[in-house]
């Protein structure tokens, strides 16, 4: 079992550009959540996807959007990048029928640097 896989592991973008991050959930999982972890801080919830729809969103602007595909994998898109978007982006997957968050597995993250 490969667990939660995120790609790429690192990337550097310029202010104003757009970026797409990808996540493949753990085998058997159907729900994907995204978190932003700024340097020296705890992760902040961006949103969660289930059945290809965003069903809960944290306090992030509309520049942050996502998508879930029929195979349960997910993408996080960020438009008009700001320097403050530099962070580690974590994907977590879980199984809908489990108690929320109690069986969540996290990927190793994508380190985004905006210059």
């Amino acid at each position, binding site marked *: 079992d490969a667990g939660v896989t995120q790609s790429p592991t690192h990337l550097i973008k310029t202010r104003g550009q757009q970026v797409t991050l990808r996540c493949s959930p753990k085998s058997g999982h159907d729900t994907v*959540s995204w978190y932003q972890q700024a340097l020296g*801080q705890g992760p902040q919830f961006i949103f969660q996807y289930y059945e290809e729809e965003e069903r809960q969103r944290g306090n992030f602007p509309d520049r942050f959007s996502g998508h879930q595909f029929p195979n349960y994998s997910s993408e996080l898109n960020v438009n008009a990048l700001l320097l403050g978007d530099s962070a580690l982006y974590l994907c977590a997957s879980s199984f809908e029928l489990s108690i*929320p968050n109690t069986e969540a597995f996290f990927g190793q993250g994508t380190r985004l640097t905006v210059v």
Partner: protein
Amino acid sequence: AQSVTQLDSQVPVFEEAPVELRCNYSSSVSVYLFWYVQYPNQGLQLLLKYLSGSTLVKGINGFEAEFNKSQTSFHLRKPSVHISDTAEYFCAVSPTNDYKLSFGAGTTVTVRA
């Protein structure tokens, strides 16, 4: 809304000594409680969780935590640490009817020989 306060940002400790990481939370609804560990350049790994029942929860790698409802705390302990326990530790809460995890700012544990 929920909030999590980790009372210590950094905890240095000698190998084989005990360690306690303090976590307080606030919430107007019932919550589940979690401790996660993050090793350098890695994602989060679940150490333990409290859902209900016994207030003393045992997790992986010899860690345990105690839920105190009256003090709204969920402190993490380990009786004897190893060098390999050097990492960042996060306390998190989730409302029982919600999908969002709210994390504290983290505690850096540095174990010295």
